[in-house]
């Protein structure tokens, strides 16, 4: 049985995918099944499963190069029960636009049965925050198409050997930023703020969310909301990665929880230009929950094992600043200068 309410005839409208209120309401059907070859404890594979389940059967998925291609989607044992096509590393945005444009043109011209079909472009942080940023930015301008870009962020080029990406956190040990005798910290940049950048820079993008698969219900409903609201939408998922982050696979969910609890990974939805914090992030912002020290998160992972007290203090100070001095805590890092024209 289809779990989608289809607007047959009005193919330009998005599908109406109501939120699932409670885990007992989640559809039982799986569209991402056995056959993938990802690592034990891989949270990105879990995100793919949730993504496919939330979207339902009338969906096309375009997967750019990365873990969810190379390790996940192999010839003769594909895990995808949805139509799936590979796209190049920097092309998740272009693939989604091309697919949506092709469908819309064919339906408008009477060459294909009219129906709303979900189009989802999937990319990792290398494919999204780095190489594919330009194409995703272009995709976010296409208000005439309904498409979702899902960026699964495991904070490195995890498929190719854990190399530094624009999403790798400060100081993390990757195969391109190994701590050495002369330089303890090789990766000196602070992680790119991708979701907020997409939201701030693309006024036609009606929905941007950050998720962590530790909260499956929120992740499922973010996908369903993005697909229902229509136009170009974007979800950024933080995916703990046992191989790249160097911890026992059994702790993937726990580390995802700590990312939120320490305030390093704020959970929010931006819908129609209004931001809404959710989950533990909301309670932290409301003062109902105290942020845990970042040390609790960092020291659980081998990629930060070389950190000394100064390094931990540096990260703590940066995270504190995210919460104390950013105009929207954890989201928007700039405010009007005092006395600037047009500001309060």
């Amino acid at each position: 049985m289809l779990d989608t309410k289809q607007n047959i005839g009005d193919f330009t409208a998005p599908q109406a995918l109501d939120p699932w209120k409670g885990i007992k309401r989640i559809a039982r059907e799986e569209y991402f099944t056995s056959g993938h070859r990802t690592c034990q404890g891989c949270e990105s594979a879990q995100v793919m499963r949730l993504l496919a389940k939330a979207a339902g059967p009338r969906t096309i998925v375009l997967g750019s190069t990365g873990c969810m291609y190379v390790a996940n989607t192999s010839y003769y044992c594909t895990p995808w029960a949805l139509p799936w096509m590979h796209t190049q590393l920097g092309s998740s945005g272009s693939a989604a636009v091309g697919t949506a444009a092709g469908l819309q043109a064919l339906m408008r011209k009477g060459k294909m049965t009219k129906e709303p079909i979900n189009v989802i472009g999937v990319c990792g942080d290398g494919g999204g925050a780095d190489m594919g940023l330009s194409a995703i930015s272009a995709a976010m301008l296409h208000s005439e198409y309904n498409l979702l870009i899902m960026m699964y962020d495991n904070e490195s080029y995890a498929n190719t050997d854990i190399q530094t990406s624009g999403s790798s956190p400060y100081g993390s040990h990757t195969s391109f930023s190994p701590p050495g005798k002369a330089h303890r910290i090789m990766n000196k940049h602070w992680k790119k703020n991708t979701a907020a950048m997409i939201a701030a820079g693309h006024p036609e993008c009606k929905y941007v969310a950050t998720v962590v698969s530790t909260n499956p219900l929120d992740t499922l409903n973010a996908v369903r909301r993005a697909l229902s609201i229509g136009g170009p939408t974007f979800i950024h998922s933080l995916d703990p990665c046992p191989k790249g982050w160097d911890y026992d696979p059994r702790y993937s969910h726990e580390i995802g929880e700590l990312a939120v609890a320490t305030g390093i990974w704020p959970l929010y939805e931006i819908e129609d230009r209004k931001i809404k914090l959710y989950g533990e992030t909301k309670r932290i912002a409301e003062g109902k929950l105290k942020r845990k020290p970042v040390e609790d998160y960092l020291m659980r992972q081998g990629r930060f094992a070389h950190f000394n007290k100064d390094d931990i203090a540096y990260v703590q100070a940066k995270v504190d600043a995210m919460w104390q001095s950013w105009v929207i805590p954890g989201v928007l890092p700039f405010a009007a200068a005092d006395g600037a024209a047009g500001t309060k």
Partner: protein
Amino acid sequence: MSIAEVARPAAAPVPVAKRGETEALVSGSEAVAHALRLADVDVITAYPIRPYDTVMQYVSKLIADGEFDCDFIVAESEHSQFEVAKHASAVGARAFCGSSGVGWLYAFEAIAVTAGLRLPLVAMVGNRALDDPGAFGTEHNDALAVRDLGWLLCWVDTAQEALDTTLIAYRVAEDHRVFLPCAINCDGAFLTHSQAIVKLPSKQLVDSFLPRYDRGDKRLHPDNPVTIAPQVNEDWLMEMRRQNDLAARHSRDVLIEAYADFNAKFGRGGEPFIERYMMDDAEVALVGMGTLAMPVRVAVRNLRKQGKKVGFVRIRWFRPFPSPELQEALAGVKAVGVIDRDYAFGSPLMGGVLATDVRSALYPAKNRPKVVSFIAGLGGREISTDNVMDMANTLLDAAGGGKVEEQDSYWYGVRE
């Protein structure tokens, strides 16, 4: 290789009045835009670079005026432009894009995978010199860079041929025996921006020649939940490469069929792979691609007036390469001069790309002629009739037993 019979045109002109054709003064780029309208293309992607992008200016105007219904997407780079078109093609939409010079190379990754995926995208290349240093003029190295990947590559000479070949390109590329992308090469400025009277066929006539694009069981759609291009590694890649090889071979037969049908329905079109000019009794022959045909034909006529038996073969399809046709057409001549509007630095005999392939194609021929490489017209520099007459005289000397350099190339029009 299964070498098909050498195809000669079936000339049976159909009266113009019966075909509902109109005539218009249009440039090569505008002629291609009309072909796209007539082919009812579904998705077109654009990005600006001179000189190809004039086709996109005409396309956007046709759409704005309500004469053409397609999704027209202005991408943010050539890479995205080609990727968007590629994915539209995968869901069954007839797609078009194009580029020039370094823009084509910016899209190289997408261009490579489009052939690997067997997607019948049609593109126009407005041939342009590769930067650096910057130059707008024509050179063929942009499109030639993809010659080994499975793209079908043709070079056209006139606006009429540009229009006709675009229609033929869709028919051949979308044939299930082929399913390969095709690039129509138009020399920058000389063809993209030069106007000529062109016959614009009726939609009805085009429909009788060009069936709808049917992606069949490879269409990406929820009713057909296939996984396209998963990771295969060494387990399967070689079998897939072999399938692409077979597709490229099949394109020969499909091209022959398409030209026969085009000639029958449109009353024009000519021979599929090459154009022969005054070749029947030629002792020496010039060979080239694209708009250099004009000064070459003039030079050949001038030489004929002097009693010199010179002919010209214009190569229309570079991939698949017309080896059987060249072996047959050039079998009787004593010397062949290949004029390349490209370069191949450090190549086997320091000649152009085309000269290298022509020499290779003629190697197994009986009585193979001497093959001489001429490099001319780079960066859009004019190839004069004097240049061509000098080339032909060099060949005639060689045919008469004179010495000619076969192990190097002759560069024409270089200031020393």
